[in-house]
């Protein structure tokens, strides 16, 4: 009897130790996001107070206390749009090729290769951009410099391509074989099966993949920083992608180290970073919420 009580007490205290440890870890992990956001918020709050009106302007000149963030916002969006317009169609079509055409063995090789390609560090892309791509672009368009918005968009497109292909391919392969067999047995052509059966079913996950790629495109720093030209100006006319520009990330990459901590300059930079986080976090969360919804239907 006494032994039983001893055993019970022993296992109870052991359980507490593991449980405490696990709980502490989980709490820490959950808290980190909040900590990061709070830290950013704390530093950027004063920025709004100090330079409120100029923030929405288009001129960035710390010496004259002007902190217009619109050129950076514009740059981020334009670069992201160029990248998505190029990478999304090529990516989804490539994913269709891999999923619907390749034999199982070749498909696995392609998938492994893609996973490895998503791991290429962004600084390496930056190096290629600055030493190869920008020179090509300058040659093709006859420009003084190839460090322009277009180059950044092109580079980013190549960066997000493996991610889009990989995730879209997963989405397309997940459409159950039953649907495919029934459709082909009816004598439909491949493009009809893809258009009317597979893509409608895979639509959700593919859109989710798109959002993830979008988030990555907005948040990419090193590659964009080296090829965008660092010009704090919205080009005129605005659609001129052959001009240099600036994105939020390239601005941060270049100036955070050089601004004094606590200065208005620094605080505005932190504010921009906060805006960036809010944008990319929404993209990421939306993507994952979409993923789960389509899972639930499966």
């Amino acid at each position, binding site marked *: 009897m006494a032994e039983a009580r001893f055993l019970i007490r022993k296992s109870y205290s052991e359980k507490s130790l593991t449980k405490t440890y696990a709980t502490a870890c989980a709490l820490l992990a959950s808290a980190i996001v909040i900590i990061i956001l709070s830290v950013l918020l704390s530093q950027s709050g004063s920025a709004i107070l100090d330079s409120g009106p100029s923030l929405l302007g288009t001129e960035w000149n710390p010496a004259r206390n002007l902190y217009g963030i619109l050129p950076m916002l514009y740059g981020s969006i334009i670069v992201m749009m160029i990248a998505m317009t190029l990478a999304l169609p090529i990516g989804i079509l490539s994913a269709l090729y891999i999923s619907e055409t390749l*034999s*199982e063995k070749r498909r696995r090789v392609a998938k492994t290769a893609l996973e490895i390609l998503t791991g290429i560090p962004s600084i390496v892309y930056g190096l290629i951009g600055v030493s190869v791509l920008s020179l090509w672009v300058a040659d093709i368009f006859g420009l003084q410099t190839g460090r322009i918005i277009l180059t950044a968009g092109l580079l980013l497109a190549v960066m997000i391509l493996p991610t889009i292909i990989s995730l879209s391919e997963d989405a397309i392969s997940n459409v159950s*074989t*039953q*649907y*495919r*067999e*029934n*459709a*082909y*047995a*009816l*004598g*439909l*052509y491949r493009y*009809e099966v893809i258009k*009317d*059966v597979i893509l*409608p*079913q895979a639509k959700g996950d593919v859109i989710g993949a798109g959002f993830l790629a979008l988030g990555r495109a907005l948040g990419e720093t090193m590659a964009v920083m080296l090829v965008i030209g660092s010009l704090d100006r919205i080009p005129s006319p605005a659609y001129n992608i052959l001009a240099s520009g600036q994105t939020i990330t390239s601005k941060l990459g270049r100036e955070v180290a050089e601004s004094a901590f606590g200065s208005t300059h620094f605080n505005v930079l932190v504010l921009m970073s906060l805006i960036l986080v809010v944008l990319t976090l929404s993209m990421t969360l939306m993507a994952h919420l979409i993923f789960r919804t389509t899972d639930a239907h499966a």
Partner: protein
Amino acid sequence: MPHTSPPALKVVTSNRAETVISTENFSAWFGENCVLSGINSAISKGRITCIVGPSGSGKSTFLRSLNRINDDVAGFRMQGTLSVNGLDLTSDNTDLTRLRSQVGMVFQKPCVFPRSIKENVLFGVRGQKMSRLDKNKLVEDSLRSAALWNEVSTRLDQPATTLSLGQQQRLCIARALAVKPDILLLDEPTASVDPVSARAIEALILMLRNTYTIIMVTHDIRQTRRIADDVLFFCDGSLIENGTSDFMFSKDCTERSRVYLNEEFCDC
């Protein structure tokens, strides 16, 4: 161990019907695994042919080869002669779209597309230009042939997923019929539905008999007894015996077939 069919077995079919499907020394593999070996068979037009045999005997693989739907399964290859409606299926140049407009298939598990009932029926003919009048007529004819019209005529625009499994299976039959094939392949069509729906589907198969050539894989010997004109008995990848239903269910067939068809036992 798979072995070739005993050679001198007479293929007993009705003399009046023409042969629409014939195979000669037909074999099939999934990778290294031989699932069919040396199948010699002839299937007659306008009759119901039931393919029976224990699990793993290759019946479904044989059926699925008749519309080349095995092509997309990893590692599948075939050898020998397989001729359907005059088309040689073992060549690489076979026009699969044309083949499947002549040979329709209904699968074991009903698979309706997430669309309306009407759109499901018309799914196989979407590429063809048809007036709205013709389309509506096709929908009605197909659903009537599939014994489903009375139940759904008032709700053709509702999602097909709202139908019961038995109704969904009949919808799949209607969908296959809308393509106007000559031959219908049915892979255990009543296996996934309730007994009442199963009987309804059997009744409709009997109605379809002369207009279509029907080949049906089934586990249900009693079902075979009820509706089959001809029977093919597979075991372990080989065609053990085939003949008219009268022949196969009489005492005149070989021991092995008799044991399987009466006691559902096969020692493979």
